[in-house]
């Protein structure tokens, strides 16, 4: 592995815009050279796949009804669901990306970790229990509760599919590149492996298998990261002060890594980013689906509590690992050679080292650190965890996309509810296979594109289209179908248009000189527009149907508050 001579380009460019989003996508773009085969990593990965396929076989035998398929029978406990939610959130890229960001910029990495986390308490206080009380399988169940099914479900399904697709492309491209780098497998082979195993999890094991794969991976990732952080701190007598002091001595930026840098420059961008992260999380269909896998509102609340704890703990670990990378990778060995830095670059700088000289780019900081603290066996473990993580996140996304098609579009819009469960599950399984094959081809098509903006797109769409409809339908009794459809569409369109005209796409992707809209993140504007649209088109709606929909709010309100009539767990 130390012979890695590849360069993951684009990280620096991506940092100026959707840095955390880029981090999540593991902005590995540009050419990546295939590596020599890493047998330890492949062995551990095979062990993981065999274990999870065993679980899928077990889950397949439990999965009979639609409720089993979409929501794991509603029998997941709060603690298990907390781990699964944390697993969905801790993608391979957020592990590698945030550790890499801390390694290059120090404190700035912490700013993004904080932004990623603070949405969770808000989700708990305002959304989680209402969602659990009102919903069945998808968030569209909640959004369309008292409205006309066809338009709302269609819009919600489009929002879900758009979010899932953009997120999936980013994961697939990241997966292909990472696996090429870590395992020495061919890019296309890597995509096929991810696609095929993921299809097996979802079609045979449904939500039960997907959840358990996510739980196992979360435990592996948390244990691996804990081990690394402990090994790093142990070298400094568990004194953070000593670790930080050493890091400031070695890092080219010196003491400035202990203070905010230039990543957040103006308050509009900062607030906009904060809103997109917070509300985007609350609009991601694969995360929202997890709330239907627990028995009741009580367990739904507990799952957010555990998830927040695990995610927060994980971010503190990545911060330590990033600093560990500084103190372990920027030092020469006994022969005066820097094993983790590009020898040519070190020579060109006359031995004055700089974090950017790291072999494989800054996203590889955590991987090299694993090698430095635990040798090649532990390196293999962390590489296998990274692969497992991608697999688990991709499976969760695909299930959310398949549910939007089978439950919202097929069962509710096309068949108008006159469909039996087995047909609905069959449509879902066929959709899973289609999405899986599509994901492989999209991964190939976008191989050399900068995919960071796709994650940005996914988050902004989730925050601007899905989230406003969801939250207004739960809280505002005067909302009508017309308001929901027009407001949601306004959010969707304005988010996409502003993102395309902004620096992320207009300049970075399309190559124009100056952006038409100066803000990286349109969240502040598109989210506001969406809410205003819902409000305006609802209050001006005087149709008899609107009156009927307002009348239905009372029953919805009582159910959302008390859980009366809510979906229970299936008995088996």
């Amino acid at each position, binding site marked *: 592995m130390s012979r890695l001579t590849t360069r993951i380009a684009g990280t620096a460019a991506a940092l100026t815009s959707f840095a955390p989003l880029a981090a999540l996508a593991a902005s590995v773009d540009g050419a990546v050279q295939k590596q020599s085969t890493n047998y330890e990593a492949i062995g551990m990965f095979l062990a993981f796949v065999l274990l999870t396929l065993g679980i899928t076989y077990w889950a397949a035998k439990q999965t009979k009804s639609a409720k089993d398929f979409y929501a794991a029978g509603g029998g997941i406990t709060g603690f298990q669901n907390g781990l699964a939610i944390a697993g969905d959130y801790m993608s391979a890229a957020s592990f590698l990306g945030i550790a890499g960001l801390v390694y290059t910029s120090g*404190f700035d990495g*912490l*700013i993004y*970790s*904080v*932004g990623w*986390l*603070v949405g*969770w*308490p*808000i989700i*708990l*206080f*305002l959304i989680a*229990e209402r969602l659990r009380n009102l919903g069945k399988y998808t968030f569209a169940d909640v959004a369309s509760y008292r409205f006309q099914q066809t338009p709302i479900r269609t819009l919600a399904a489009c929002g879900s599919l758009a979010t899932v697709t953009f997120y999936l492309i980013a994961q697939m491209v990241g997966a292909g590149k990472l696996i090429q780098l870590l395992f020495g497998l061919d890019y296309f082979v890597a995509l096929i492996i991810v696609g095929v195993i993921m299809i097996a999890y979802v079609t045979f094991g449904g939500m039960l298998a997907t959840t358990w794969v996510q739980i196992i991976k979360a435990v592996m990732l948390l244990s691996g990261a804990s081990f690394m952080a402990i090994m790093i701190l142990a070298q400094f007598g568990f004194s*953070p*002060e000593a670790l*930080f*002091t050493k890091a*400031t001595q070695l890092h080219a930026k010196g*003491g*400035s890594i*202990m*203070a*905010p840098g230039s990543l*957040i*420059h*103006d*308050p509009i961008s*900062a*607030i906009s980013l*904060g809103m997109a992260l917070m509300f985007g999380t609350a609009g991601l269909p694969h995360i929202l689906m997890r709330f239907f896998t627990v028995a009741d*509102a*009580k367990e739904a*609340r*507990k799952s*957010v*509590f555990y998830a*927040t*704890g695990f995610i*927060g703990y994980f*971010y*503190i670990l990545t911060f330590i690992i990033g600093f560990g990378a500084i103190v372990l990778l920027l030092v020469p060995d006994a022969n005066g050679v820097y094993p983790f830095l590009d020898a040519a670059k070190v020579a060109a700088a006359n031995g004055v080292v700089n974090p950017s000289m790291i072999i494989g780019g800054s996203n590889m900081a955590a991987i090299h650190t694993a090698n430095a603290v635990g040798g090649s066996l532990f390196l293999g473990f962390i590489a296998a965890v990274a692969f497992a993580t991608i697999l688990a996140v991709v499976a969760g996304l695909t299930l959310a996309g398949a549910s939007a098609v089978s439950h919202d579009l097929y069962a509710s819009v096309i068949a108008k509810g006159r469909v039996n469960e087995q047909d609905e599950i069959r449509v879902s399984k066929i959709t899973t296979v289609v999405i899986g094959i599509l994901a492989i081809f999209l991964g190939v098509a976008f191989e050399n594109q900068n995919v960071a903006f796709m994650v940005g797109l996914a988050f902004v769409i989730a925050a601007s289209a899905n989230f406003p409809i969801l939250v207004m339908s739960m809280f505002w009794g005067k909302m009508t179908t017309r308001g929901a459809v027009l407001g949601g569409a306004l959010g969707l369109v304005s988010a996409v248009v502003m993102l395309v005209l902004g620096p992320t796409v207009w300049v970075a992707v399309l190559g124009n000189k100056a952006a038409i809209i100066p803000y990286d993140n349109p969240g502040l504007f598109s989210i506001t527009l969406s809410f205003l649209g819902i409000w305006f088109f609802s209050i001006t709606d005087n149709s008899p149907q609107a009156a009927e929909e307002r009348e239905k709010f*009372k*029953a919805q309100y*009582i159910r959302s*508050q*008390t*859980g*009366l*009539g809510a979906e229970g767990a299936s008995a088996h």
Partner: protein
Amino acid sequence: MQDRNTRILQNPKFKELVAKRDAFALTLSVVMLVIYFGFILLVAFAKGFLGTSISGGTMTWGIPVGVFTIVSAFILTGIYVQRANGEFDELNRQILEETK
């Protein structure tokens, strides 16, 4: 069902539950937003402060402030779950019991 909904709406405990829980959730949300946006505004406008050494060493104020923000998110969710799964769920149970 319609009758039961009316009974629930008229139950004084239902009004009590909704008022208490909404106020509590809103308070905690505001606390979280103030902490988070306070942190972001410090980052945007008071970079100097966050880069100041705490006691002459390398450790700056930025680190405990950032870690505090992460930990506060966890603690706030804990506080909410504690009260919602105890007091509020008990009240909810009584409401459903009384309106059967």
